[in-house]
């Protein structure tokens, strides 16, 4: 009989007796390599984290009109999102109730209704079963169409254009789950009057790496830049001093949501993340003074919405001629297995953006990030190699070390909510992420704070 976590149906140990509490030692900064490579840990993670938590599904702008459909994935299962005739977005398991076939089999579609290719069962844009083949051959005891609609996602929520879903009816509503991270999401998504939209479609690619290396990298690992992205320094597109990007702050919001801020380039004209000046009045209208202060003073902000949605607001040069240009990207790190991740990376832009700003922001993004980006190519190299080696049973005997700048006192004057520490080089935010991950693997209601 395995030891159980009190008050849950959860075993507290892996099959070989290892305690789940030993996988992450947040206080001492020790992380077990098994969490990146062990199939048993992956299964626990699917059950206790991904089938319970809120996960990012789509951006509102991707399905603007009734009948617009997107197919996505929620905790490893296919879902479809559809905007109904009432303008409301709904999400369902993408599976016919008759034999299980997907009722939408493209990434995007425009539908009047969903007809299963197999036997023709047909569902409305609101997910109701409206027609069954040879319906006269069923009697009432054997067919109750009202009970056979598409299976809805348990909860669907939207914040500033980001649509999230969960298979759990127990997890609190989205805005409670996001907690004080909403204050920070507003800086990127709520600063312009009309909000943001996706530029085109997401870039999607698969990498043989555990998803947590990507989420960890975006929790605020600003100190990988001078090693991992040394080639960009060599090109002269980043300042040569390896401490040049060490200023700013690391922030731990509630619920494992974490981020960092870094001042922009040392140009007196630089402010407000480097966005075009016409957006400054928007920022002053839409954000409160503490939020405005953070936007005004910084050039870079990167973070992770727990567990696997990350974002980056940065200013970059993707070539030798263009001026430093800001972009905002959100990316989902979707686990396919312990050692495989599907990355979906979205470029967002203010809906009011001029065509010149759109083009500049888009080419700056594509040249530096995404699968071909001169920065991001090298990230995949690192995450892939870390995952490969951490599969090893000998390697797994030795923990991985996190401990940079743990001694720094809190910055009590930081204007935003949560806890903040001065300087953007450190590992507090990574450890906060792993601590939250451990809570979801061991607690009945990890969202209770």
């Amino acid at each position, binding site marked *: 009989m395995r030891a159980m976590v009190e008050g849950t149906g959860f075993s507290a140990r892996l099959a070989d007796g290892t305690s789940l509490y030993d996988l992450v030692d947040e206080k001492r900064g020790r992380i077990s390599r098994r969490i990146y490579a062990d199939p048993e840990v992956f299964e626990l993670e699917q059950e206790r984290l991904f089938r319970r938590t809120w996960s990012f599904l789509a951006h509102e702008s991707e399905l603007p009109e009734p009948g*617009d*459909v997107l197919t996505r994935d929620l905790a490893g299962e296919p879902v479809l999102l559809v905007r109904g005739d009432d303008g409301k977005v709904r999400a369902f398991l993408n599976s016919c109730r008759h034999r299980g076939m997907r009722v939408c089999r*493209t*990434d*995007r*579609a*425009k*539908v009047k209704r969903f007809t299963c290719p197999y036997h023709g069962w047909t569902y409305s844009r609101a997910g109701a079963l409206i027609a069954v083949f040879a319906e006269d051959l069923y009697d009432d005891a054997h067919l109750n169409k009202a009970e056979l609609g598409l299976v809805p996602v348990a909860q669907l929520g939207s914040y500033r254009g980001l649509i999230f879903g969960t298979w759990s009816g127990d997890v609190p509503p989205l805005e409670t789950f996001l907690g004080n991270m909403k204050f920070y999401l507003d800086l990127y998504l709520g600063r312009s009057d009309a909000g943001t939209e996706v*530029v*085109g*479609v*997401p*870039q*999607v*690619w*698969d*990498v*043989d*790496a555990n998803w947590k290396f990507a989420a960890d990298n975006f929790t605020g690992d600003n100190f990988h830049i001078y*090693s*991992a*992205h*040394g*080639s*960009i*320094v*060599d*090109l002269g*597109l980043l300042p040569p001093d390896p401490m040049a990007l060490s200023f700013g702050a690391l922030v731990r919001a509630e619920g494992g949501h974490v981020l960092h801020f870094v001042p922009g380039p040392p140009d007196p004209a630089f402010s407000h993340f480097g966005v075009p000046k016409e957006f400054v009045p928007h920022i002053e209208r839409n954000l409160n003074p503490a939020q405005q202060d953070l936007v005004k003073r910084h050039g870079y902000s990167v973070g992770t919405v727990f567990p696997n949605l990350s974002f980056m607001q940065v200013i970059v040069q*993707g*070539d*030798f*001629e*263009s001026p430093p240009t800001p972009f905002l990207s959100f990316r989902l790190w979707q686990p396919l297995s312990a050692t495989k991740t*599907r990355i979906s990376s979205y*470029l967002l832009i203010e809906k009011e953006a001029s065509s010149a700003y759109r083009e500049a922001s*888009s*080419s700056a993004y*594509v*040249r530096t990030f*995404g*699968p*071909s980006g*001169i920065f*991001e*190519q*090298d990230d*995949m*190299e*690192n995450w*892939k190699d870390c995952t490969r080696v951490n599969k090893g049973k000998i390697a797994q005997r030795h923990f991985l070390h996190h401990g940079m700048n743990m001694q720094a006192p809190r910055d009590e004057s930081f204007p935003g909510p949560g806890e903040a520490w001065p300087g953007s080089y450190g590992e507090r935010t990574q450890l906060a992420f792993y601590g939250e991950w451990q809570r979801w693997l061991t607690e009945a209601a990890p969202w209770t704070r």
Partner: protein
Amino acid sequence: MDALTPVSVGSADHNLVAEWLYREAMLFDRGDMNAWLALVEPDIQYRMPVRRSATPGAGGDFSTLMYHFDESHSSLTARIKRLGTEHAWAEQPASRTRHLVSNVLVHRAKEDELHAASAFILTRGRDDDAIDILSGEREDVFRKTETGLKLARRLILIDQTVLKTYNLSVFF
């Protein structure tokens, strides 16, 4: 839009384009990227649109707004210079590629401008990984210049909606 005149397979202009494409493939596969850069025009536009599957009513597969590559001469130069630095980890060690080009069809747009469509298979081996295979079509615009045929436009139509290679640190 200029009218496009078909150029017969085996004619002088077809041979010119086909040889250019074969030479390019060899330069790519031998990693001689500076020699390749000398074959492209200063106003080059080099793009790979993102492909997502869509029903006919929901627009085409290829995005007209988002790209995997959206390159100018300067950004291609940055990519190539980067490969020569000490810290371009994604290509250290370098990918072992094979660019196979076929189905080359050429049209003449103007006296000095040729359009070419071709199919490619790109195999990529690296480290002891299994070989990644990427396929697609390229739509190119070439100009005849005093220093030979030069690439002015390239549109790479990749066959994958989800890229099954972990990064695009190679050229198409």
